[in-house]
């Protein structure tokens, strides 16, 4: 069974705001490796639209920055699922639109052969965390206090206990924290 991994950037005070993030070559290379080990990305509407509005244009008109251009090609080619009740259609290639989050559907996706599934939207990470189906969290803490914004863990109702797997420190001062979910129901099937 493949893993469902929540991967997201946040500031030290726990906000998600892509404009506050450092995205240097080392960070892009990190995400390129991550995407190379994935074959499905799951997004909510807001993050999806942010990605759709930017990366396809980089594929068409490369920036000249290799790690960034490589990332654009990787994210363009990978299978994407976007969950939204309001979107009517999606224009990005390899993208499937779904209206409802159905736990069984996502579990079935996990049972299919293939590489890891990544979820990268704040609201969706919280929704899937509450369904107990996230196997791993990769939180990249940026060296910034933002003061205000969209809190990542706003709507967590039930406490989630995690096990620290490792940390990875970047030259820019970002620190990626890798956690495994300790919920038994997620893991006993494949270990």
């Amino acid at each position: 069974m493949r893993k469902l991994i929540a991967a997201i950037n946040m500031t030290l005070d726990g906000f998600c705001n892509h404009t506050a993030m450092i995205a240097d070559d080392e960070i892009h290379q990190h995400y390129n490796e991550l995407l190379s080990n994935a074959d499905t990305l799951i997004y909510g509407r807001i993050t999806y639209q942010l990605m759709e509005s930017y990366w396809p244009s980089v594929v068409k008109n490369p920036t000249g920055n290799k790690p960034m251009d490589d990332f654009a090609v990787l994210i363009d080619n990978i299978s994407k699922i976007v969950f939204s009740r309001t979107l009517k259609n999606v224009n990005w290639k390899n993208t499937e639109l779904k209206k409802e989050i159905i736990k069984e559907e996502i579990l079935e996706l996990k049972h299919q052969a293939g590489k890891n599934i990544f979820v990268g939207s704040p609201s969706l990470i919280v929704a899937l965390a509450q369904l107990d189906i996230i196997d791993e969290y990769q939180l990249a803490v940026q060296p910034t206090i933002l003061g205000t914004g969209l809190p990542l863990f706003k709507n967590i109702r039930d406490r989630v206990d995690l096990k620290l797997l490792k940390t990875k420190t970047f030259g820019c001062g970002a620190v990626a924290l890798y956690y495994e979910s300790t919920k038994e129901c997620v893991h006993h099937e494949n270990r």
Partner: protein
Amino acid sequence: MTPYKLLASNVWLVGGAKLTKDLIRLNLADEIRQSILPIMLGDGISFFDQIEKEQALHLKNVTAYKNGMVELCYEIKK
């Protein structure tokens, strides 16, 4: 420079969250040591709640402990 900062070599600001926030806002704090526990809680008192100030940091040190706690040590950029 405040009298306290002149007198002492290091002042450990123990807390709480409100006082910490004020001293960061007043540009008096020099360093932040934040320990992250491996738990998602969903509510409680946020360490940086209502700070309403953007502040760049310089990462000095990362220490991971066996119990899953990660201590992040930052210098506050002035």
